[in-house]
């Protein structure tokens, strides 16, 4: 009631026409979530959730609203029986589906600048900590202690008493891990290049701007597994190893070179297409509508987007690359999105989208990365750059989402469109690896 009175006393008419007109205009045009966007968002959410694994929660029964006194007993009994049903189902679910051990009592962090605590608090799963230029962050996780060096970024993927998983996105991380129950408690550090698994030790991990990862052990033993095909290695005290990003896969360099060459030649059809005649139209996957970037002919014919003159495309790309190397992903993506949506040449727009996708990949937003590669493929059908984006999408599914079917589908689409393309041998190898036997015999 008081709120009603409060609201009426603040009627827009009393505080000026401009604000009232603005509010009225906004009320007439509410933001609308169209069905295609909703479907895309739902798919992205489910893929991300699936990739992160089922959560381990036990939820208290909700407190039912208090019923009126006259019938409280009846309503209470009904609510209690319903609550018991929920509790039982939760118990049953927990029993059958819980995938990890109990959570840590408290995971805490402290941001220190010049030895002084500037900020502290509790950590939650999925949270990211980023140390600035002057500070470093100390994290206590039960039996382990992590020291995040300045200008470093770490995401905490899982925080349970027996399983701590962190991702080092950039910078350096020192780890001291002394489990109370050796062999049962695990800690792992993932980077773009490698996964470092620990059983009780002290070591440091450093990721440089390119994504290469250096691991140094000062106590105990760690196991380093390159993310790409490569040999696992045990590191002992005093040993160190440098894992280049995607090292171990001999085809990687060829892939990178082919993608760069494809971008450079994006304006012209790929040699394979020239021989094969008209390029095949791209078949967008279910759920992709290409609406994020509406690259119609009419739009291409428009004037250059304000702030992104044609002459500065390379500068924008270079500035964005520099920002990405500095870990400023969000700001870099903003610039790249503007460039991708501008009437710049296809080569520039595809490169912008490719960089956005790589940024999303580096930050773990895999479904968004996949969407962006699809967009890149969509705007350059029949061109090598578009085919390369399709290949990158396939590789993303193979390595990150672990969606075998999607990877196979994307590799096959690549081969349908660019059977003689620069990446065709790698695509066939990948299909063979994914147990598509017919590709193993060539």
């Amino acid at each position, binding site marked *: 009631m008081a*709120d*009603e009175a*409060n609201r009426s006393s603040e009627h*827009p008419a009393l505080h*000026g026409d*401009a*604000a*009232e007109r*603005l*509010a009225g*205009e*906004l009320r007439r*045009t*509410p*933001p*609308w*979530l169209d069905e295609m966007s*909703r479907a895309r*968002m*739902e798919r*992205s959410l*489910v893929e*991300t*959730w*699936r990739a992160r*694994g*089922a*959560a381990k*929660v036990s*939820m*208290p*029964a*909700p*407190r*039912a*609203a208090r*019923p009126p006194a*006259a*019938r409280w007993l*009846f*309503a209470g009994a*009904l*609510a209690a029986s*319903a*609550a018991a049903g*929920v509790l039982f*189902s*939760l118990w049953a*679910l927990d029993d059958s589906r*819980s995938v990890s051990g109990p959570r840590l009592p408290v995971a805490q962090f402290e941001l220190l600048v010049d030895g002084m605590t500037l900020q502290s608090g509790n950590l*939650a799963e*999925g949270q990211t900590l980023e140390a600035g230029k002057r500070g470093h962050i100390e994290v206590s996780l039960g039996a382990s202690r992590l020291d995040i060096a300045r200008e470093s970024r770490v995401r905490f993927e899982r925080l349970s008493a027996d399983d701590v998983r962190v991702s080092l996105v950039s910078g350096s991380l020192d780890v001291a891990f002394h489990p109370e129950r050796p062999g049962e408690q695990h800690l792992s550090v993932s980077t773009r290049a490698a996964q470092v698994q620990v059983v009780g030790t002290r070591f440091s991990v450093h990721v440089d701007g390119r994504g290469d990862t250096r691991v140094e052990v000062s106590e105990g033993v760690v196991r380093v597994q390159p993310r790409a095909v490569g040999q696992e290695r045990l590191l002992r005290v005093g040993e160190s190893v440098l894992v280049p990003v995607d090292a171990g896969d001999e085809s990687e360099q060829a892939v990178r070179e082919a993608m760069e060459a494809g971008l450079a030649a994006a304006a012209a059809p790929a040699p394979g297409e020239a021989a094969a005649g008209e390029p095949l139209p791209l078949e967008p996957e279910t759920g992709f509508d290409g609406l994020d970037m509406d690259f119609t002919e009419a739009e291409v014919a428009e004037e250059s987007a*304000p*702030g992104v003159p044609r002459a500065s495309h390379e500068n924008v790309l270079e500035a964005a690359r520099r920002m990405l190397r500095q870990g400023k992903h969000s700001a870099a*993506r*903003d*610039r790249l999105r*503007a460039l991708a949506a501008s009437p710049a040449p296809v080569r520039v727009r595809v490169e912008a989208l490719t960089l956005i996708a790589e940024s999303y990949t580096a930050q773990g*937003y895999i479904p*968004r990365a996949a969407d962006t590669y699809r967009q890149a493929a969509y705007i350059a059908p029949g061109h090598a750059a578009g085919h390369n984006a399709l290949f990158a999408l396939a590789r993303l599914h193979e390595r990150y989402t672990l969606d075998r079917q999607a990877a196979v589908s994307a590799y096959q689409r690549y081969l349908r469109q660019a059977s003689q393309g620069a990446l065709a041998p790698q695509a066939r190898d990948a299909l063979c690896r994914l147990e598509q036997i017919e590709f193993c015999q060539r």
Partner: protein
Amino acid sequence: MQNVRTIANNAELLEEAELLSRAANGDEACVRRLFRVHSPKLHRQVARILGAADPDVEDVVQQVFLAALDGASRFDGRSTVSTWLFGIATRRALDAARSRWRRQRWSRMAEAVGMGAAAPAPDRNLGALADADAILSRLSPEQRLVFVLHDVEGHTFAEIAGLTDIGISTLHGRLTSARKRIQQLAKEADHG
């Protein structure tokens, strides 16, 4: 009659809570259902706070659901799941708006001292935005939040305080300054 309604509300509350619980425990169908039920309203809330054409809207909505699924154990049933999600969405969107506002501080400063117009936001490059959105983009995130939630969406101060953990008197002050700023921007637009 009121009792019947209360009982029905309780049943709905329990059903919602169970849906959240099952989704958080890995039931994919429940994740999808939770998303379908709540995404339109959450999207609208986030889009109001960030701007309908803001490219981060979808990311923020996804973060809201991931945070809710991760933190389902913290849902205590004192409000509906919908209200709880609204709170998460509002705070996440405000965080995203503040982050963007900080990133754009140099261009705003350059504009203020007459060194040229601020660099256009990426969303402006995607097409013509309504004048309303252009004016809103000049408000601080805190001013914008209280203006759109109170004057546009019709929430009371108490409701906004519940969603954001910001005091009512602070909200009141921000709304007043938001309205003044809008008046000023509208005048500038008329003269310019």
